């Protein structure tokens, strides 16, 4: 019961899974570039049931039966890797005329509608003329092999096509083993034969008047990587043939001849825009968007198409005008197949360009240069791109700084100079040594001496004035004493005499009148006045006070006091 339930669950999921798969119809052609008569393989893959219909050109000649079966593979659907089971139908065929032929699309009519694949284009080219040794010289052998090559001499980068050709004077029944020829040097090799080398198409050639069975085997395109002369070592094969002597099948191992090829360097005069391409090439370019805002990044897709060594070309150099800057590295997507013409198809370089200024910006035509081995000359291809219309955003966008490659160069000295500069002006002794110090300090010394002179002169003047003033107040004091003699009133006399003495002393000591006291005068002894004079002054002051306040002033004689004051004044003169 449990097992039955589990089986139901598994079947339910399996049905759901199969219905959950997206419907797929694919048409595969391999190779897409072939020579006239060369087989191509056509494969139809689908995971739906229905009536299959397919467009095949009238020129297509089917050469084998249709094979069908089931298979599964990992496919990418909407960016997700998914395991898909599908049915396939495959068949082979060839074209007898050169040109481009469209195969497909494949249409499958189901109950839910029609599903169709993308059509595919096959390019059929002329047969490559092959060079080989004369097979007539090997007619003494029953079966022999000769290496055929597209050229004996070629330029570096140019493809070399090699193929083995087997000649047999007996019926070859089967190719049981094949060891391909070996290019004895650095090279990039690509096998062109699509079918199993054991299954070959034979034909008959007439050699030395004799019908000989021939078949070709192990076609290969080689891109020699270095110049020089290289050997191509022989191919080997084990063949099953019908021995005419016994009428039984026999095996034989054949070893072909050995040949050489010369790889020449490209001629001098390589153009500026050379991208390392050898063959025939063209170029086209397109912006992803021509109307954009300032500061945005636009994609420029540059596609190089052609044949030769397309897989080895470098990206075209693009010179941007000011205001445009590359934003990161270019992305490269190629669609390349290998044929007798080398690698052919297209290689698309996507450049990301930041636009940093507004306005209409025109990029210069994009140029490439390649070497055409047919003309043995460098040729140029170019294309124009549309003008970019950039709308200003009002902001100044800073250009992304380019990572600058470090320039390696041998360091050298800075060069010589032609102007005579930095001439020695230090030879003037004016400001050096003691004389320099004397000159520098002369204004200071002059100021000092002149100032001192002025000061001394001024001091002298002051002293003179002081002397004049001191003499004057003594004269004034003496004249005042003289005037007192004319006074009759003793009270007035004593008052005036006291004032005269105090004023005189104040002038003498350069103080105010109020400061003249006995204590003040005592302090002046003995530096400015003598002890005797001090006693005299004090006794005069005492006498004056006693007379004024003693009550007997009217009858007293004050003349001796006047004399004593006069004596004091004169004492100062001395």
């Amino acid at each position, binding site marked *: 019961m449990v097992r039955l339930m589990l089986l139901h669950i598994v079947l339910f999921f399996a049905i759901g899974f199969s219905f959950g798969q997206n419907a797929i119809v694919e048409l595969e052609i391999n190779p897409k570039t072939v020579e006239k008569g060369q087989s191509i393989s056509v494969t139809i893959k689908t995971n739906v049931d229905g009536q299959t219909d397919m467009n095949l050109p009238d020129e297509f000649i089917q050469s084998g039966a249709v094979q069908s079966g089931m298979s599964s593979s990992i496919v990418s659907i909407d960016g997700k890797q998914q395991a898909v089971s599908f049915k396939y139908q495959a068949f082979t065929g060839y074209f007898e005329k050169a040109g481009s032929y469209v195969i497909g699309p494949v249409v499958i009519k189901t109950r839910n509608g029609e599903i169709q694949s993308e059509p595919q284009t096959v390019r059929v080219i002329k047969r490559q003329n092959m060079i080989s040794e004369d097979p007539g010289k090997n007619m003494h052998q029953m079966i022999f092999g000769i290496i055929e090559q597209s050229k004996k001499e070629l330029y570096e980068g140019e493809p070399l096509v090699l193929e083995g050709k087997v000649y047999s004077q007996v019926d070859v029944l089967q190719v049981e083993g094949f060891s391909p020829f070996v290019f004895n040097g650095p090279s990039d090799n690509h096998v062109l034969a699509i079918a199993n080398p054991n299954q070959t198409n034979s034909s008959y050639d007439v050699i030395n008047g004799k019908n000989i069975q021939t078949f070709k085997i192990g076609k290969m395109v080689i891109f020699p990587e270095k110049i020089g002369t290289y050997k191509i070592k022989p191919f080997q094969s084990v063949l099953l043939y019908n021995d005419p002597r016994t009428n039984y099948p026999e095996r034989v191992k054949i070893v072909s001849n050995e040949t050489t090829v010369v790889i020449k360097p490209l001629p001098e005069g390589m153009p500026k825009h050379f991208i390392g391409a050898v063959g025939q090439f063209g170029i086209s370019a397109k912006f992803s968007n021509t109307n954009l805002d300032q500061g945005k990044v636009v994609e420029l897709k540059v596609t190089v198409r052609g044949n030769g060594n397309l897989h080895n070309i470098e990206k075209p150099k693009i010179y941007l005008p000011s205001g445009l800057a590359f934003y990161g590295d270019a992305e490269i997507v190629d669609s390349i197949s290998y044929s007798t013409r080398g690698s052919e198809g297209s290689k698309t370089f996507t450049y990301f360009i930041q636009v940093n200024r507004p306005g209409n910006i025109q990029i210069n035509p994009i140029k490439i240069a390649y070497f055409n081995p047919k003309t043995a000359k460098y040729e140029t291809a170019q294309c124009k791109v549309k003008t970019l219309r950039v709308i200003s955003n009002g902001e100044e966008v800073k250009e992304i700084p380019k990572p600058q490659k470090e320039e390696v160069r041998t360091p050298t000295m800075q060069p010589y100079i032609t102007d005579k500069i*930095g001439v*020695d002006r230090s030879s003037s002794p004016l400001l050096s040594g003691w004389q320099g110090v004397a000159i520098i300090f002369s204004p200071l010394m002059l100021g000092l001496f002149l100032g001192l002179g002025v000061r001394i002169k001024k001091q002298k003047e002051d002293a003179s004035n002081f002397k004049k003033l001191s003499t004057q107040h003594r004269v004034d004091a003496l004249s005042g004493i003289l005037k007192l003699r004319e006074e009759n009133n003793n009270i007035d006399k004593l008052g005036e005499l006291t004032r005269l003495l105090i004023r005189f002393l104040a002038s003498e000591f350069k103080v105010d009148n109020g400061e003249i006291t006995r204590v003040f005068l005592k302090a002046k002894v003995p530096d400015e006045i003598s002890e005797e004079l001090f006693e005299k002054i004090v006794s005069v002051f005492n006498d004056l006070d006693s007379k004024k306040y003693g009550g007997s002033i009217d009858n007293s004689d004050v003349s001796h006091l006047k004399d004593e004051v006069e004596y004091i004044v004169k004492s100062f003169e001395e």
Partner: protein
Amino acid sequence: MRLILLFISLFTLSFIGRAEHSLFNSGLDEIMQNDFKKAQSEFLDDIKKQPSFSSYYNLGVASGSLEEWSKAKWAFESSLKYKPLNGDAQFNAKFATNKLSQNNMWTHPYPWLERVVLGFGATTWTIFVCISSIFLGLLIFNIVSRRKSKFKKWCLRLISPAILLFVVSFYGIYSINKHYNIERYGIMKSPKTHFYISPNGVQIKDEIDAGSRLRLMKYFKDSTWVQVKSKDNNYLWIESKDLFTY
């Protein structure tokens, strides 16, 4: 008569000037024709007559071209005496030093303060010292004379900057005089130069880096011998003839 004398003296002066300039130009001609030996000789003669930055610099270029790196280092560092801030001369001096010794890190021979002082130039310092000296003279006069005036009040207010300016400009003139008139450094003419403990004394076996700059300390015996201080602060004696000095 006076006119004739004036004319003769002017003619002589112009002739001397042209002769000096012609030596420099001859050196330039030789250097342009890659005759560096002759160019060296011309520039050396020019330096003897009138040393200049350009003459020393071009002598360095000529010597460097002849792979005479000691002479080149000396010439470039000597040129820095006249233009201490020149970038090309500094680069070439460093270049020559590296050629002499990979281990030697080149440094500028003159300290930054000296470079700043030299950068202002002798004329600037002379003007500054004259102005400040006269100003201070007036100030001293006013202070000493005890005169009362408005000028004295301003003098007292500006006394600090005046003294500072005077001291700085005096130092500037002193530094410039010292810079141009005293030889301070020496470069060995050859890596095999011998050093001695004393003049004519015992030879020192220590190897001195060929790219090193030696500081001159003192001369001896009519300047035949010179005492130098090495990078390691060792005092050594060397014969003057083995040394480029500047």
